[in-house]
Every structure is written in C-alpha cells, then in structure tokens.
C-alpha cells in the first residue's frame, strides 16, 4: 500500500497550525480549571455556608455530563438566549467547567490524604485553620496532588479532541475536512495519530516519572 508522502508534506502546515490551536485551548482550559478547582477546594475546606452546596452541585453536574453536550449547550444553546460566545471561548469555558471539578477533586484528595493526627497536632499547638493549611496540610498534600493534577492535564488535553464539533479548526476537524475533500484517509489519519502521540506521549511519560518519584518520597517518609 503506497503512502502518499507528497500529500502528507503538503498538509503538514495545516496540522501544525491545528496542533498549536489545540495546545493553546488546552492550556487556557487547564489554567482556568486549576483556578476553579483551587477556589472550590478552599470553599469546601472553609465550609462556607451557602457556597459549599453550590460547589458540590457544580462538581456533580460537571462530572456527570459529557463535554460535547456542554459545548453544544454553550455554543448553540446560549447563543439563542442572547449570550453569544466565540467558538474558542466556548471551548475554553467548556474545558474549564469540566476540568474545574476534576482539579477540585485532586485538591480534595490531597488534603484528605493528610492524616487526622497531623491535623490534631497542628491544632494542638494553636495553629489557625489557614495556618494549618499553609504549614501542615499543603506541604504534605503536595506530593499526592501533583500526580493527580498532572493526570487531569493530560485528560483535558485529550478532551480537546472534542472541540472540533463546534467548528474549531483543530486536529479532528482538519482531519475530517481532508478526508472529505481529498479521500486521502490513511494519510490524514496517520498524521492525526502521530500529532496526538507527539503531544501526549511525552506528558504521559513525565507523569509516570512524577508518580514514581512521589511514591518513593512517600515511602521515604
């Protein structure tokens, strides 16, 4: 089976542009979801009265609905009731909405991994709740949270494959167009897979290394 190398070379710039767009959107989504997740876990930690339930509801809603529907709702649905967002804004908002709850769960997992006796210890020397967080919980939660956050980042990067559905010229969209227009299916799919491998494989390896390092630190403790 002959691979049409000329075709591949000619469309590489398109793919490159799409890959950068994907990375850009993923980055925006990741940063926003980290902030949302952090905010949510602080609210849950401080047990702020009304907000606590709001945060819990948000987390359940975003974890139990698919990103595709969230995007469609944001892009097509909201537009009809007067809130018109650009495709890229929708993508980032959708990713942030979905990712925020995953990040919040990561932070929560980290906070809960700090043993009760450590917390009682901190309290018994008179630390305030915020001081407890800063000096006792965060440093110890760190090692548990980081791998989890890393996994979420990779997850969000993969989820960007969905944003093509709302007319963003990302990798999936480009592939679909090319298949439709030129019927060079094999070549288009090949570059698609390679593009994702290039983006995600290094991160995955990094994450595995990170997890191993953290596990060593834990046992060292």
């Amino acid at each position, binding site marked *: 089976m002959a691979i049409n190398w000329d075709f591949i070379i000619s469309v590489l710039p398109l793919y490159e542009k799409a890959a950068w767009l994907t990375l850009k959107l993923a980055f925006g989504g990741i940063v926003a979801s980290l902030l949302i997740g952090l905010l949510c876990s602080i609210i849950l930690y401080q047990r702020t009265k009304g907000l606590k339930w709001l945060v819990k509801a948000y987390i359940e809603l975003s974890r139990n609905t698919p990103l595709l529907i969230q995007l469609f709702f944001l892009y097509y649905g909201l537009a009809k009731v007067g809130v018109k967002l650009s495709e890229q804004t929708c993508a980032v908002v959708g990713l942030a909405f979905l990712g925020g709850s995953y990040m919040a769960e990561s932070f929560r997992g980290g906070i809960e991994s700090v*043993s009760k*006796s*450590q917390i*009682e*210890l*901190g*309290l*018994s*020397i*008179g*630390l*305030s709740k915020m*001081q407890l967080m800063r*000096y*006792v919980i965060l*440093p*110890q939660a760190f090692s548990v949270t980081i791998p989890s956050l890393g996994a979420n980042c990779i997850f969000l990067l993969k989820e960007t494959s969905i944003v093509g559905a709302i007319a963003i010229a990302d990798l999936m969209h480009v592939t679909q167009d090319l298949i439709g227009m030129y019927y060079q299916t094999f070549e288009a799919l090949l570059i698609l897979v390679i593009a994702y491998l290039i983006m995600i494989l290094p991160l995955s390896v990094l994450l595995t290394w990170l997890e191993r390092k953290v596990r060593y630190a834990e046992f*060292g*403790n």
Partner: protein
Amino acid sequence: MVILNENKQALLEIQGLRKMYGSAAPVLDDINLSINKGEAVVVLGPSGCGKSTLLRCLNGLESVQGGDIKFSGKSLTGKDVSWQEIRQKIGMVFQSYDLFPHMTVMENIILGPVKVQKRQEKEVLEQAAQLLDRVGLLNKKDVYPRQLSGGQKQRIAIVRALCMNPEIMLFDEVTAALDPEMVREVLDVILGLAKQGMTMLIVTHEMGFAKAVADRIVFIDSGKICEVAKPDEFFTNPKTERAKQFLNIFQY
C-alpha cells in the same frame, strides 16, 4: 467523688463534665476534677473508659455536651472560646509520635512559638536548643523525623509542646505505641518535668511510672470517676471493687 482544695487556686477545674456521641450512652458522665498548679495527676482505667476522651475535651479536640471546664477561672465550654489561644497554654502530647514529616526537628519545634505566638525566632531557637539538650537530642536538631526512632520522636514531641510555655501539659498514653526499650527514656523526661513543678494530667498504662510520678491517681471506669487517691494508697489498698479488679489485671 469530688476533691476540693480550698487552699490553692485550681489551675484546671472540671465540673460535671458530660460527653456523648449522639444519643448513645455517655462516654464521660459527671466528671468532677480539680488540678492545682504544680500537681501531676495520673488518670488510670480500663480501655474505652473515656480517659483519652477526657484529655481531648480539655484541648478542644472533642466537644462537650454537659458540664463545664474552667481554666484559670475562664470557662472553656462557652461559645466564644478561642481555642487558638487556649491551646497555647495547654500543651498536649499524643500517642502517635507524629512530627511534621516535611520539617526538620528544629523547624517542628519552632513552628508554634514563632508563627502562633509571634515570638522572636532567635529567642525561640535558644529555648528550643536548651530543651533539646535536656532530653539529650540536641545533635538531632537538623534531622528529619523519618530518620528518628519512636522514642526520639516522642521526646521531641514533648519538647515541641514545652516550647510553647504551656501552663499545663496533657499526656495521652504517650508510650503506648513505643517499643519497650524506648518507653523508659520518654517516661524519664516526663518524670523530670514533674519534679520541676510542671502541672500535668497524664493518661498511661505504665503502673510503675504512675506510682513514681503521680501526686494523685484518678481511676475512671465507664466514663465515671470511681476512685481518687494518693498513689501509695491506690496501689496497695484500693477502696473500690472496680479498682481492685483493674489492678488485678496487672498481677500474674
């Protein structure tokens, strides 16, 4: 039984203390106890009788459902109790010799005094060094907890609590989780503190130690104070049936 001491001002007064979880039977029922400055009171009793819970109530780690606790005359059971302030004056050492694993020994010790009491770091470092020296662990000041034995960690936990300059120390079965060889070194430290006049409330299973350190023995069973006596009397001539049964457990 109530022991009143009209001559000295009680540092800690526990009146009619009651603690329950939900609607179950009370874990602590009508506890009345006064502790004077300089006194070392040892609390003995079978497992599950509520002695650890009593200590934790004094420190605000457990809520109280009835009765009152007065510390230097101020009530600890009201709504506006600032536990942050109180805990600086009530030092507690736990059974799990937990130190903060991500800090060195010295950092562990100075955290409270510097960050909570806002004292000068230099002064705290000096005091910490002195205290470490007295327990024989000055050479470990820059070491991380994972490199220390249980007994060493527990002694440092005591130093950490002492560095806050508390008025009373609570010891919750601090040697229960230690290997037998290390129990002695920790108990010696506590004995030393008692001789220096530190007010303390100790929960322990070590009978020999209790006899040596206590000014008074308080025997608790099923959440109630059964018997209060001087150590000599308690160990040689217990007055209540329950106390007799309890002491028999330790005879073979």
